[in-house]
């Protein structure tokens, strides 16, 4: 019942928004629904951690500790983003960029997007997981194209085609997996259920599973934004409205990596070689390097942080490739911290773009003069995302590096290079934007009212996790990882 209840709120929300999304109160209703969802996800996670995994709806739905972590993260960031989105859209509206019709489309798609991600996280059936991940793609395609500028339509088209192709590969992987499991589990419903697959993973045919995993990592890896499949990501992040960039970066990438990790557990059971680890490490390292080096000359602020997302997802992927209890924990911690910090950065960036009227870094100046609190938030976000202590990314990056020293010492110089380049680039870019331009300040628009608490909630949580709760979180995450077998290797 718990499992269905977390899906109910966004489902009803989507319908309600479809009917009343154009009205004035709709944005507040959206907040209400998102917080209801958050409440339900929180209760679900509480229940899972207290009483063990839940199975429901004829075994099609399922949640264990591992999915509960992602479910709560999705619910929570979905809720805070709805707060930010309320303010962001109010500013857009005051400038005449927002009609009732567009608001309705946006709000109902926002709820559908949350719904599809939650379905991915609670679905036990790997076929349904594919279906809802594809559903999430379709929803976000429309959201990226939402502003209807030529650039956004182009970005959405690119996103659609690349992810459509990618996700087709994942479907072929699903077919191969079904093909292998059907031999042990028999044809019909149970052969794609993760819980059943996990029980018989040692008996699955390794040749087929190995091939299936390759298709999966290419397919879902496209959605994670792993290099060289990342081409859609910077465009989609840059051209979508800021709240959507925040949930794309903070949630959707995680959900896709979650899907890969579920499959990795199965593949590791069947294969008796480190194929999955090597693939994850390879794709991960490539993403870290290319993501950070591509930040060098970026002129677009949202694109800059989109490349930073590629880098961080690569780092998390690499950590899971390193494996072992510490490596996997570091990966999961990194995903959590990155979600919190990156979505908050996109909140800040969204407001900066609104107040300075441009997305291009050379044109964004005087942030500190115009809106000092935004400049502070941007600086803190930059420090947090580059792994300055005591923010949580420092803890996870430190862990990843220390595991890498033991397990893959050759990768250390590359990782360090990437981390240093990222730090340098972000630091100078933020200094530039916050700094004075020397031009006489003019305020073409009235100063919009900005809500800061979603931003500070996220940074605060990342701060607290990094400073105090690494240990507690470690115990919880360790249990979750151990229960699904991601700590082996």
């Amino acid at each position: 019942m718990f499992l269905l209840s977390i899906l109910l709120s966004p489902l009803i929300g989507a319908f309600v928004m479809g009917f009343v999304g154009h009205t004035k109160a709709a944005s507040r209703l959206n907040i209400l629904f998102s917080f209801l969802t958050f409440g339900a996800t929180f209760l679900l996670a509480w229940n899972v951690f207290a009483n063990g995994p839940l199975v429901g709806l004829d075994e099609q739905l399922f949640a264990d500790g591992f999915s509960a972590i992602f479910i709560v993260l999705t619910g929570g960031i979905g809720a805070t983003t709805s707060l930010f989105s309320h303010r962001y859209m109010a500013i857009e509206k005051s400038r005449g960029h927002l009609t009732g019709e567009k608001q309705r489309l946006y709000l109902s798609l926002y709820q559908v997007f949350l719904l599809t991600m939650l379905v991915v996280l609670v679905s036990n059936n790997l076929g349904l997981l594919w279906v809802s991940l594809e559903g999430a793609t379709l929803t976000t395609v429309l959201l990226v194209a939402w502003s209807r500028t030529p650039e956004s339509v182009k970005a959405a088209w690119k996103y659609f085609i690349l992810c459509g192709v990618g996700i087709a590969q994942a479907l072929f992987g699903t077919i191969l997996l079904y093909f292998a499991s059907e031999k042990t589990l028999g044809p019909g419903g149970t052969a794609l259920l993760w819980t059943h697959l996990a029980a018989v993973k040692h008996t699955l045919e390794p040749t087929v599973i190995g091939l299936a995993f390759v298709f999966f990592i290419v397919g879902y890896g496209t959605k994670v934004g792993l290099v060289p499949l990342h081409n859609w990501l910077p465009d989609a992040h840059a051209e979508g409205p800021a709240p959507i960039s925040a949930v794309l970066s903070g949630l959707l990438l995680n959900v896709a990596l979650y899907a890969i990790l579920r499959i990795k557990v199965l593949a590791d059971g069947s294969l008796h070689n480190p194929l999955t680890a090597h693939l994850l490490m390879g794709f991960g390292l490539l993403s870290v390097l290319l993501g950070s080096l591509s930040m060098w000359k970026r002129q677009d602020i949202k694109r800059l942080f989109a490349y930073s997302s590629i880098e961080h997802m690569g780092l998390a992927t690499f950590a899971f490739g390193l494996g072992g209890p510490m490596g996997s924990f570091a990966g999961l911690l990194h995903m959590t911290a990155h979600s919190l910090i990156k979505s908050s950065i996109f909140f800040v960036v969204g407001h900066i773009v609104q107040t300075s009227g441009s997305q291009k870094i050379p044109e964004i100046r005087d942030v500190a003069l115009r809106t000092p609190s935004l400049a502070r938030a941007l600086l803190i976000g930059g420090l947090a995302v580059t792994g300055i202590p005591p923010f949580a990314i420092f803890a996870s990056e430190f862990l990843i590096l220390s595991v890498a020293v033991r397990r893959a010492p050759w990768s250390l110089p590359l990782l360090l290079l990437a981390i240093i380049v990222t730090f340098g680039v972000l630091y100078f870019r933020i200094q530039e934007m916050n700094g004075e331009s020397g031009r006489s300040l003019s305020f073409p628009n009235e100063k919009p009212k900005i809500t800061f608490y979603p931003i500070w909630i996220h940074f605060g949580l990342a701060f607290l996790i990094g400073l105090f709760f690494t240990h507690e979180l470690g115990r919880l995450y360790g249990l979750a990882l151990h229960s699904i077998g991601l700590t082996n290797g």
Partner: protein
Amino acid sequence: MAPHPHLLANHLVGMLGSALLLSAFANLAMRRLTSLVRIFALQGLLLTASTLAVAILSSETHLLFSALFTFIFKVVLLPTILFRLMNRLHIQGEVESLVNVPSTMVIGLGIVVFSFTLAAPISELASTVSKGLIGVGLASLLLSFLMMITRRKALTQLLGFLGMENALFFSAINATYGMPMVVELGVAFDVLVGTFVFGIFFFQIRETFESLDLKHMDSSSLE
């Protein structure tokens, strides 16, 4: 293995498979959009027939539903939507100038050889009556992929996307007698929604770029 009693039906399945592969090649060479949509409908028909044949050979009754479903969805519904879309957008007669059909064909041949090599070990493990055709499914998948890469028009890319879905369906039928029903329905639903999203897009692209040719999109650079 002893010779199968339904030798004729077995041959039929093989022939339908080759026809599907041939149609994937035809996609690569066709220039007129109307012919491409017709080929898509033909592919749907081939899929229906081969699903029926496999259903009879293996006496898996749920495949009969899949066949019926495929017929309604891929022979009737989607081509109708596509033709209507083309009518609405006035692009029936449009011709795409293709660069280098011969070299695309050669790459396509390479893809077929590669797919069969990749699928050979899987085919050996399969226990279905039509296990030799898994390679055909993989090859059609990659050929549709090739079509999406080489074509410049939005609608041709959509047809490549749908061709990929056809190939996936075909692989599922031949490797495992289809996926569980709930998954198949879900996939079909996604494809339908996807087609509508594509449709919405066509209007948006035309509105913003005044053409459905994607080369106009490239000229408005992002970064």
